[in-house]
């Protein structure tokens, strides 16, 4: 089953954030609980663990670009996405 990775809500007042790094590459397997990317907000920089598992698909946002909470960052799928 595909799992959506979105810009997480990290705290009550957060409205947007930027991904500053990915710890996995597209096509790599990601387990639930593995640290997947880091996010910077106006308050913190934080490592984010994966809530789902699967093969990481194409990354949809540029590093450092501010995007609203809930923005799709990438998908996790049962099969590796051959296009990526």
């Amino acid at each position, binding site marked *: 089953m595909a799992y*959506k990775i*979105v810009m*997480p*809500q*990290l*705290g*009550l007042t*957060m409205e947007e954030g930027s991904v500053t790094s990915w710890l996995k590459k597209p096509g790599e397997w990601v387990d639930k609980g593995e640290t997947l990317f880091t996010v910077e907000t106006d*308050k*913190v*920089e*934080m*490592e*984010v663990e994966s*809530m789902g598992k699967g093969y990481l698909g194409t990354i949809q946002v540029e590093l450092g670009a501010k995007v609203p*909470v*809930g923005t799709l960052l990438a998908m996790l799928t049962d099969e590796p996405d051959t296009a990526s």
Partner: protein
Amino acid sequence: MSERVLAEQISQELLLAYYKKVLELRLFELKVQELYRNGRLPGFVHLYVGEEAVAVGVCSNLQTADLVFSTHRGHGHALAKGVPAGVVLAELWGKATGSSGGRGGSMHMYAPEYGFMGTNGIVGAPIPLATGAALSAKVRKHSQVVVCFFGDGAVNSGSFHEAVNLGSVWDLPVVYVCENNLYATEMAFVRATKNTSVASRAAAYGMLGVEVDGQDVVAVHEVAQAAIQRARGDGGPTLIECKTYRYVGHHEGDPGTDYRTREEVQQWKKQDPVKLARQRLLDSGMDENKLQTADQQVEQLIDDAVEFAEKSPEPSAASVTEHVF
């Protein structure tokens, strides 16, 4: 008393029940974390991940009529006291089916029909409330026992000193349970006080203080059982210090890494309450298949709770003037 001796004293059936409850609290909070981060749940949440054995070990000794007063980190206390997972989740979701009709949320969640007298956003505030409830039980000659949970951050507040002293001098049927997770938000307990033994403070009030491994549900259960029996038998209060740890940040959004080391977090995860309870069951001879069935039952319970809460209606606009003064 060694842990082995304790483990032999309780039946496999009870041990399995404790394990499933500890797992329920864990999976519930991880689900809340996921829903919150995905922007589904409103408000502000403090998660109980890592501390589950305390709530389950204590509340497994309580009856429905007994009362629990909780903290800002209280979802686990509500579940352990018997509030159904769907009702707790619906409350977090602001739904009409939540225990407080969706108006309380994480830190004002009440379910008196289950003896759950509320989570509380103010550190230390529930301690006088619990003491008052225990006084009420004593005056009414009711057999109720009151349990008050609070963190290490509360024990240097005046409300702790005043309330615990009153509880002791009046021999009230209350059990004070400190969940010492070593940090009050970002403040390390060793930087907040010279006397880092909370249990030892009981001597100042002339009451019994006990320290216990808060990661071991059986150890907590045994200590709490003695304290609750003493309270019910008019033997007065006990101060229990549970040594525990939160794996996550203080609240969702706190990375939890600026004021403690990753090594420290990893070290505590080696004494994980879920793993410890599971290992006790394996040691007691339970086979892996039976444990997997138990795991699936708890996972299903959480899935059902999500479905219930998600499908529940929002409070109606017509009810907006209810519960206000």
